[in-house]
C-alpha cells in the first residue's frame, strides 16, 4: 500500500476509529490521542500490511492496542488492585454506557466493534485475532450480560455455519 493510499483509507475510516476509541476510553482527549497514535504507528508499519483489503481491520487492531495501552496506564496511575466483579443485577442497574464500560475487556471489544463500530462478526474476529465462533460466543455472552436485544441472529448463524465448514 502506498503512502497516498494509506492517507485516503485513513480519511475514510477516521470517524469510525474515533468512535471506537471513544467507547473504549470515554473521553475526547484520550480518544483523539489513541487515533493519532494508531495512525502514526500504522503509517510506520504500512509496508508490513501484505493484504490492503484488510486495512480497516488492521488499523482498528492497532487502535485497540493503543486504547488498551492508555487504559492500562490510567489504571496504573489510579489505585492498585483488581476491579470488583459485577453481578447481573449490578449490570441491570447501570446505564448502558457504563454497563458496556464495565464489561470484561474481551467482551467489551466485541460489543464496541459489532454494534458501535459497525464491523461484521468476521471482521470483528479478524481485528481481535480470534476465530469467528469465539467472537460469536463472546457476543452472545456480552449481550446476555447487557440484556440488550439486537437483530443480529443472521450474523451469528453465518458465523456458526462458517465455523462448521
Amino acid at each position, binding site marked *: 500500500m502506498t503512502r497516498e493510499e494509506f492517507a485516503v483509507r485513513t480519511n475514510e475510516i477516521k470517524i469510525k476509529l474515533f468512535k471506537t476509541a471513544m467507547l473504549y476510553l470515554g473521553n475526547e482527549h484520550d480518544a483523539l490521542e489513541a*487515533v493519532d497514535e494508531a495512525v502514526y504507528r500504522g503509517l510506520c508499519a504500512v509496508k508490513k500490511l501484505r493484504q490492503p483489503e484488510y486495512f480497516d481491520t488492521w488499523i482498528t487492531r492497532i487502535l485497540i492496542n493503543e486504547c488498551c495501552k492508555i487504559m492500562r496506564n490510567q489504571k496504573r496511575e489510579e489505585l492498585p488492585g483488581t476491579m470488583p466483579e459485577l453481578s447481573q443485577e449490578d449490570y441491570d442497574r447501570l446505564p*448502558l*454506557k457504563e454497563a458496556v464500560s464495565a464489561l470484561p475487556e474481551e467482551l467489551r471489544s466485541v460489543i464496541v466493534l459489532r454494534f458501535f463500530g459497525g464491523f461484521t462478526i468476521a471482521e470483528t474476529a479478524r481485528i481481535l485475532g480470534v476465530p469467528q465462533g469465539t467472537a460469536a460466543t463472546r457476543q452472545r455472552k456480552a449481550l446476555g450480560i447487557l440484556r440488550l436485544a439486537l437483530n443480529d441472529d443472521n450474523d451469528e448463524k453465518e458465523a456458526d455455519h462458517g465455523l462448521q465448514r
Partner: protein
Amino acid sequence: MDYRDNRMAEYEKMLKDLDMAVPAELEGVWDRASAREKKHRTVMRFVKPAASIAAVFACFVLSVNFITPVAQACSKIPVLKDLAAAVDFSGSLSRAVENNYVQTIGLYQTKNGIKADIDYVIVDQKQVNIFYRLEYETGGEAGNNIERNENTELAALVEIGKDMPPHGITWGSGSDEEGKLRSVTIDFTDSDVPETIPLVIKAKERDTQTWNYAKENLAVFTFTLEIDPYYTAQGKTIEIDEKLDILGQHFTLTTVDIYPTHLQLNVESDEANTMWLKSLSFYVEAIGGGKDSKLESINGISALGSKDTPEVIAFRKESPWFYNTDNLKIFITGARLAEKDMEGIKIKVTEPDVGVISGRLPDGVRLEEISRQKHADGKPTVEIRFKTVKGSDGGSTSEIYEVFEREYLDGEEREGYMETYAGTGDSNEFTSTLILEDYDYDTATIYPCFTHCWKAEEPVEVVADATDS
C-alpha cells in the same frame, strides 16, 4: 416502556451522542501522523561521536525498519511492554526483549524539578543499550516553579566516565518524548563492556525546530550502572578467512562476531590496494533460522573504522543470536571505496557559475542546488544539497549514509567543520545537505566519504560455519 425498550433507547442515544462527539481536530489526524513519521523517517542528523571515540570512527545508518509485530508480541510480556515499544527500531533488541534478555536496573534521581529514571539495559560483550526516562516533576515546590518553554523539549546528552575504555555513544534512536523510554547505545570497540559504568545524563532544553541544545544544563544526573557479568560474557567469533576482490582491490573477510545485540563482519585489506574500503553491502542468512532469518540492516552504528587509516574494517548487521543457529551464509552485494590519493571537490557557492569547479563527485552523486540565506543577525548560511542514487552500492534502497566528510576548507584554505543532514525522500535518490554557517566566501572545498561504488552482478556467497571454529 419495558426494560428492553429502555435499553434500546439508551443504545440509540449512545449512537447519536457518538456522532455528535466527533471533534474538529480529527480532520488533522493524517497530517499529524504524516508530519511525525516524516520527522522520524526522513531526517537524521548524523550525530558526532563522543570525544572518547577519537581513536575510532563509526558510520551511521538510519534504516526505515520498524519491527512492530515483534514489539506487539513482546507487549504480551507485561513487565517489558514499554521496553518492547522502545526497541521497535531494532530487530536485534526486539528479539532480545522477546527472549527476556534484559537486565532491570531501577535507579532514579530527582534534581531541579526533573526526574531521571534508568529502567533497563540490554548488554553483551561489546555493546550496552541503556533505557531511561526523563520528565518534569509534577507538583511539589520544584515542579511548580519550573518555567516551561513551549518551543523546546526536554532532551538529554548522555556520557560515560572519562576513564572508560574507547567507546562510541549513539543517542537519538527510539522515543524522545517526556516520560517515555529513551535509549542510548554505547559500543566498546577495543575492549569488553566493563562491569561498572559511571553514567552522566545532562538534561537540557532543545529547540523543537532547529534541534539545537541549550548551553546550560537543566540538571546533571550521575549514576553508577552495575552490569550483570552473565550479560557481558555473551558473544562468540566464527573464523571465515575468505578472499574478496572488488574493483581490482584485494580484501579478506577474516571473522564474524555474533553478539545478542549485533553481528559484526571483520575485513582486512591488502596493503598494495590503491583504494580504501569505506562500506560493504551484504546480507546474512541464518541457516535453519526460520522465515525471519534474513538479516539485512541495522540501525545506529553500522560500521567501525580503523584506528590508523581512513579504512572501514568492521561491518554490522542485526544479530542472529536468538535464531538457534550457528551456521551463517553471508552474501556480499556491493561496496563503496575511496581512492587513497583522492582530492577535494572545490565548489563555487556564489553567483555566477555556481557549481563544481574542480574534482570529481562520487559515483551516483549529483549536485542538486546551492542556496544562500542571510539570517536576522546578518550572518549568511550556505546550504549545498546533493542527491545520491539509492542502492548504487548494492545496499538496501532504504539506507542512507554520509556522502561527504564534515571537515571542509573555506575560501582561504582554512579548515572548518560543517553540519550535514540526510533525508530519504520518496524518490529513488536520497538527499545530503551540507550547511556552512556564517560563510562569506565564494568557494568551499569538500571531501567525499567515497569515490567509487561497486554493485555485484550476483551476490558473492560466503559460508561462516561455527562447527569448524
